[in-house]
């Protein structure tokens, strides 16, 4: 899987070499804008040609309960790594909730396919190692768009190898199963964002900037539990 990631990165660099130009008005959080824009364009083309149609097809042929089960299954695997990271951040309550969720959902919830824990009001607190580094005080660094994987901050890219290694999706069996699970997860995630994608399509003047500014705000919001300190806002 990591090899695949490297190959994707190489593809991105290649795309960049073909189409990198200087940016007229650089944004402080995005010093690599011209490279990022190239990769974003590549991702967008892949999305239009392959991912979005496949996700729409998946949505059309599968019943709601099945997609819900698939989403729950991957969420349950993710909750394990969330528990570890909440622990690393010294958040006892969140770690306890995450462990409780995994225990309940993996058993009563039929291997994670039914989210019993949410019905019992055990809240989800997703956390990965990128977030842990942020809560330890590391800054986000520049914005990076990775091929296929999409928007990241440099801090999260640094945490990615560990996050991938710890992803239980990687432990599901032989490499074919793992690749299959990765593709299913990608399609399932994309299917969940079909409507959101249409909103961005209609609302954005420049999809690249819209996505970047929304993503960076959202990550900052996450780091501060939905209550980030005010930034030096510029209002006329």
């Amino acid at each position, binding site marked *: 899987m990591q090899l695949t990631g490297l190959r994707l990165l190489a593809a991105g660099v290649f795309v960049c070499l073909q189409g990198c130009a200087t940016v007229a008005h650089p944004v402080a959080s995005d010093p690599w804008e011209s490279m990022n824009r190239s990769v974003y364009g590549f991702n967008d083309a892949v999305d239009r040609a392959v991912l979005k149609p496949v996700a729409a097809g998946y949505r059309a042929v599968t019943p709601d309960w099945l997609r819900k089960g698939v989403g729950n299954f991957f969420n349950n695997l993710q909750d394990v790594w969330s528990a570890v990271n909440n622990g690393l951040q010294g958040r006892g309550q969140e770690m306890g909730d995450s462990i409780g969720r995994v225990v309940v959902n993996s058993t009563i919830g039929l291997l994670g396919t039914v989210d019993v824990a949410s019905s019992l009001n055990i809240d989800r607190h997703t956390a990965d190692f990128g977030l842990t580094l942020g809560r330890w005080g590391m800054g986000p660094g520049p914005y990076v768009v990775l091929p296929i994987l999409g928007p990241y901050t440099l801090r999260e890219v640094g945490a990615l190898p560990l996050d991938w290694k710890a992803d239980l999706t990687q432990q599901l069996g032989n490499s074919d199963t793992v690749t299959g699970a990765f593709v299913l997860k990608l399609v399932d995630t994309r299917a969940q964002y079909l409507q959101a994608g249409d909103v961005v399509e209609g609302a954005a003047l420049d999809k690249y900037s819209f996505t970047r500014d929304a993503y960076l705000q959202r990550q900052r919001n996450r780091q501060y539990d939905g209550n980030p300190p005010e930034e030096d806002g510029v209002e*006329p």
Partner: protein
Amino acid sequence: MDMKRNFLRGLLLAFSLVAVGGFATVARAEDEAPDALIKRLSVDILATIKADKAIRSGDIGRIVALVDDRVLPNVNFQRMTASAVGPAWRQATPEQQKRLQDEFKILLVRTYAGALAQVTDQTIAMKPMRGSGDDKEVVVRTEIKGNGDPIQLDYRLEKTPGQGPGWKIYNLNVLGVWLVETYRSQFAQEINAKGLDGLIDTLAERNKSNATSKKG
């Protein structure tokens, strides 16, 4: 002796509570509390959507009418637009400012109306407010709960004494993303490349293409 003192203290407490309560009622008669306003609006709009079959089947026209009628009177749209446009706003002529506001309003109402059409059994939960009672600007934090993870929905409001309910919304936050901030660099890009009129044209074009694509 002790009993008497306790009684007096109790009486004093009771009086002060009545006094504070009285003042609070007087203040509310003119100006609603910002979180009460948001709660009233949200509950009202969620109930209207649930009761209206046309909206739930995706009738964009009806949603736009609902937003115009109930939401926009409580929004300072000029401030929202000015803030998204940034420093260039002050160089804009009154005519340009009006067109920017109009086009931006259409863009937001039309694109976010689609999200409102998805409402089914959602409810709203208020989160505790930060800041003191006499702030001129406040953040009201809410969560929309339905199936799936709750959706964070926050509002920035400014005090408008004597005007309507006494508060107006000037920014909106969905899932941690402030609306005005998300448009700021897109607007700046357009202005840098094509000037204020270029931005107005781009907005108008986008609205035109949204209108035709949604009809089909």
